[in-house]
């Protein structure tokens, strides 16, 4: 097994005066609140260990006060941990002198911030250059690299704008470009999309995934939003009160929650976005054109007790839908060719479409929805009733009151954008 790119071993961060006296209490298993009361010290991180492999998106997720932002700040020593090791490709960040730490920050790590952290007096280009500039790179080389990074995030043409002239989403792209400009080994993203409104946030998530598919960076992503964590993460670590509760793939987290805390969390996920058409589709009864005629079609419908049947060609490519009325009429008129009489204005969807996206269509559609792969092969069908039932049921179960409805993200959205409907 190869060496992990970033490894955190038994990391502790205690905020407050004389933090050493807290360790015996932690060993006795005292709670965070009890320790705060006894010593006045706040436990930020309590014995966190994890390792991050090259090229993965590693999501640290937790609510406010869980220590996730402290963790990411320990990875580049914006905050100095009280105890523990942070190994960047085997080099212990804690033991680095000033010079090596500066070098690591300039060339090996970079960071994207929740509120962007852009310099208002600099243009987009000069902001993107910042990391290269402080490392002493000559002006023309750094401007070239910055322009490349801006092109990557889709901001070519905005080089001479000022941050205040850009929307939130675009400002964060500048933040991302600045972080990509020094071609870091690890990209740290601290609630990078949390300050954006929901639509832009989704768009930025998609773009990050696209970028990642091309660049294969190692990304540490902090979020309080489980939907975001599930969407972006190759692996997720869930934190509570400074402790690591569970580490695993999104599926592990959803299917095998480690304890009640994670279970309660997972219940809050919008499952309509996780469950796709493929999960709930049924096998579609079909006849093959041009081999089968109206007679076979009618018999098939009788067999399955349905008033319509799908028609595919010999490659199983989808052709259309034949209803029982048409089939009987064609049989009576002795017409063998069903093709001109097929209903083709059906709604067709891909197997990985989340069912939340199918809800409106299902409400309007007259016929079942067709699931087909990108090559046009028929995979299955979705009853309108199935879609509607699934979406409603899943939404109902979400309305259950849980102790976690008021996440810090919820507050942020409320305060920054006024009323935000989910």
């Amino acid at each position, binding site marked *: 097994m190869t060496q992990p790119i970033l490894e955190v071993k038994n990391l502790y961060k205690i905020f407050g005066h004389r933090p050493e006296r807290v360790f015996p209490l932690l060993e006795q298993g005292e709670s965070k609140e009890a320790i705060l009361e006894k010593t006045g010290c706040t436990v930020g991180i309590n014995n966190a260990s994890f390792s991050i492999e090259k090229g993965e998106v590693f999501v640290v997720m937790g609510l406010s006060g869980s220590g996730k932002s402290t963790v990411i*700040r320990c990875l*580049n020593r*914006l905050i100095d941990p009280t105890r523990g090791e942070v190994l960047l490709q085997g080099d212990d960040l804690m033991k680095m002198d000033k010079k090596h730490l*500066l*070098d*690591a*920050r*300039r*060339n090996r*790590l*970079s*960071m994207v*911030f*929740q*509120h*962007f*952290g*852009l*310099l*208002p*007096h*600099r243009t987009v280009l000069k902001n993107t250059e*910042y*990391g290269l*500039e*402080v*490392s002493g790179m000559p002006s023309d080389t750094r401007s070239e690299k910055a322009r490349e990074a801006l092109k990557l995030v889709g901001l070519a043409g905005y080089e001479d704008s*000022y941050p*205040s*002239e850009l929307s939130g989403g675009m400002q964060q792209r500048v*933040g991302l470009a*600045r972080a990509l400009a*020094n071609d870091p080994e690890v990209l*740290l993203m601290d609630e990078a999309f949390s300050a954006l409104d929901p639509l832009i946030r989704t768009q930025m998530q998609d773009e990050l995934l696209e970028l990642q598919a091309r660049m294969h960076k190692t990304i540490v992503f902090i979020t309080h939003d489980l939907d975001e964590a599930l969407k972006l993460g190759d692996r997720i670590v869930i934190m509570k009160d400074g402790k690591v509760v569970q580490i695993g793939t999104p599926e592990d987290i959803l299917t095998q929650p480690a304890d009640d805390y994670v279970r309660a969390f997972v219940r809050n996920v919008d499952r309509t976005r996780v469950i796709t058409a493929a999960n709930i589709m049924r096998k579609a009864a079909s006849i093959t054109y041009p081999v089968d005629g109206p007679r076979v079609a009618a018999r098939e419908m009788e067999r399955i007790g349905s008033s319509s049947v799908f028609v595919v060609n010999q490659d199983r490519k989808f052709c259309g839908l034949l209803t029982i009325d048409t089939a009987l009429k064609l049989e009576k008129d002795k017409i063998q060719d069903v093709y001109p009489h097929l209903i083709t204005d059906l709604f067709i969807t891909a197997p990985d479409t989340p069912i939340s996206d199918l809800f409106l269509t299902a409400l309007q559609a007259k016929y079942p929805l067709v699931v087909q792969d990108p090559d046009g092969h028929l995979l299955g069908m979705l009853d309108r009733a199935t879609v509607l039932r699934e979406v409603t049921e899943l939404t109902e179960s979400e309305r259950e009151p849980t102790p976690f409805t008021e996440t810090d993200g919820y507050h942020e959205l409320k305060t920054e954008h006024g009323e935000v409907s989910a």
Partner: protein
Amino acid sequence: MIDFRLGEIFEQIVLFIQRNFHTSLRAIRNSINGMLDLFTDVLTFPHPLIMAAIFAAIAWRCAGKGLAAFAFFGMALIYNMTLWEPTMSTLAMVLSAVLIALVLGVPLGILMAKSSIAEKIMRPLLDFMQTLPAFVYLIPMVMLFSLGAVSGIFATLIFALPPAVRLTNLGIRQVPEDIRDAATAFGSTPGQMLFKAEIPVAAPTIMAGVNQTIMLALSMVVIAGLIGAGGLGEVVNRGLTQARIDVGFEGGLSIVILAIYLDRVTQTFGRKTKTRNP
């Protein structure tokens, strides 16, 4: 009861400095006089109307046509009232005082922002400087630097320095945490942090402090006139002592014109760094 006689102690300190630092005091006086003479020479060298046009051009660049017109006609009016010389000497004094205030005040403000111990020490000192009535330190100033513009500049400094320090401190402390974190995360040294991130981000606030310093310096002109600093202060004081309403009014009006001009021009400094016309 112990009798402290604080006043006497203060007097002894002033006398002690006067007696023992004679040479240093003279050196300080000479160098400030040199700076003052340089400013006065430059300001009075061109014909007043040419100078008025230069003021107007500066106003045009900073704040637009309206202020440019005001500057030209205002300055022309001052020339017409034959108050050009005293106005320029007042301006030279204000510029000298403000220059010294910035050279001292901005670094002190930065120190105050970086160290909370420095802040704790400076805060009451600044309060003291700002609220102590000017007449209290006029006489000591005269004892140390003798009658004239240098004493006036020092009296002005005591009054006008605090806003430069305070607002620099405020501006640096108000730099958003995300910006500071970002600068650190990308590998800035403390010096790079200060000059590439903190000072530029704090610039609008620091410039507001400069504006305040200039306005306070102008407001000290009349009081400085009492200790022979010359300029418009002397004109206004003559109006007062000789009961010449016309002289007093013309001197006062000149101060107002100068004040409005300096205020509007310096107000734009802070804004220019933040926004830009597309």
